[in-house]
């Protein structure tokens, strides 16, 4: 009973991850320039990688026929999810920071830019 419930919860999380991946890819195609595309990429990493990995961990815990292998699989998925949760914002921040410092991207229809005049 509990294992079936775990399987269904994990499966639903994996499906949510797939949907988030689809919308992230769509946003990467539709958004006009780099700074806005970063947000769509975040949808792809958090909703599309961390959530399905946690879902895979729960799903593996629910599979009784796997024997003792289900604990390593669950542990690997969970630790990988935590690592992505720490690493991916760093990468996004580094990209945004480098792009703004080097002024590589033209950005016209913005509302405001408070960082423009700030000297470091």
């Amino acid at each position, binding site marked *: 009973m509990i294992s079936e419930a775990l399987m269904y919860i994990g499966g639903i999380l994996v499906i949510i991850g797939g949907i988030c991946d689809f919308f992230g890819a769509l946003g990467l*195609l*539709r958004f006009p320039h780099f700074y806005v595309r970063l947000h769509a990429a975040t949808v792809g990493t958090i909703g599309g990688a961390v959530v399905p990995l946690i879902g895979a961990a729960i799903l593996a815990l629910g599979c009784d026929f796997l024997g003792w*292998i289900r604990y*390593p699989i669950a542990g*690997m998925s969970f*630790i990988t999810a935590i*690592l992505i949760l*720490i*690493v991916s914002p*760093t990468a996004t*921040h*580094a990209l945004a*920071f*480098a792009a703004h410092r080097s002024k590589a991207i033209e950005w016209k229809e913005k509302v405001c830019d408070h960082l423009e005049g700030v000297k*470091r």
Partner: protein
Amino acid sequence: MKRGHIIALGVFIALILLVSLGITFVGKVPMTTDVRPLGLFYLKNSYFGNYAARSPEVVTSILWDYRGLDTLFETGVFFLAIISALALFRIEKKEEKVKEKGEGFTFIVKDTVRIISVLIVAVSAAIALHGHLTPGGGFQGGSALAVVPLLIIVAFSKYALEGRGLTKDTAMIVRSIGLISIIILVLIPLAAGGYLMQNLPVFPSHILGQLTSGSLVFYNLFEYIAVGAGFTAVFLLLSIPEKVFHKIIGGEKE
């Protein structure tokens, strides 16, 4: 996103769906429900049986025991690739330290790299040392380990790594130590009266009552060291500043 792109994407997806529908209704889909005889042999003999490698992980027992010579020469191919990369990028003069202005990334990136490198070392060691029990092994663990110097190079600089003693030469020395250990492990069974790369009666299957699957755990450990150090050398080579090369090649300016 232009209208033409959307139409092309739609046509492509529709084509894939149609072809798979057609295959389903008309022809036969290759669906296997049995294991082939050779795979069945490996499944039966990985832990029990007369030809066993005493490892519950069948893929690792194939890699380092049944098809061990394949893996050995594959390691050789990888070593040759790194050697030829070294030959391509060789710098005969001692390179000067290029001083760049600017303070690099913010402290967010630097402190996160400090935390994450510890976690990555733990994870890579877990992958490599449990190669005979769970999916994973020496090559995978070594690739994960090599992420640490790459992150340090990106976040701080190449000289932060070299200032602490991890230069290209040290990495190559560590790599050679790993490879020489693998060669010695290959040759030990010959001295004990067996054949090349023999596993079980020569090496003990249990140490202190814990399953170590004969020589598999040692092969994984040394492969881990060798691959990690080899990738570190590659990343150190890739991060040499362009100015140094322009000075040496004397080709295009800037």
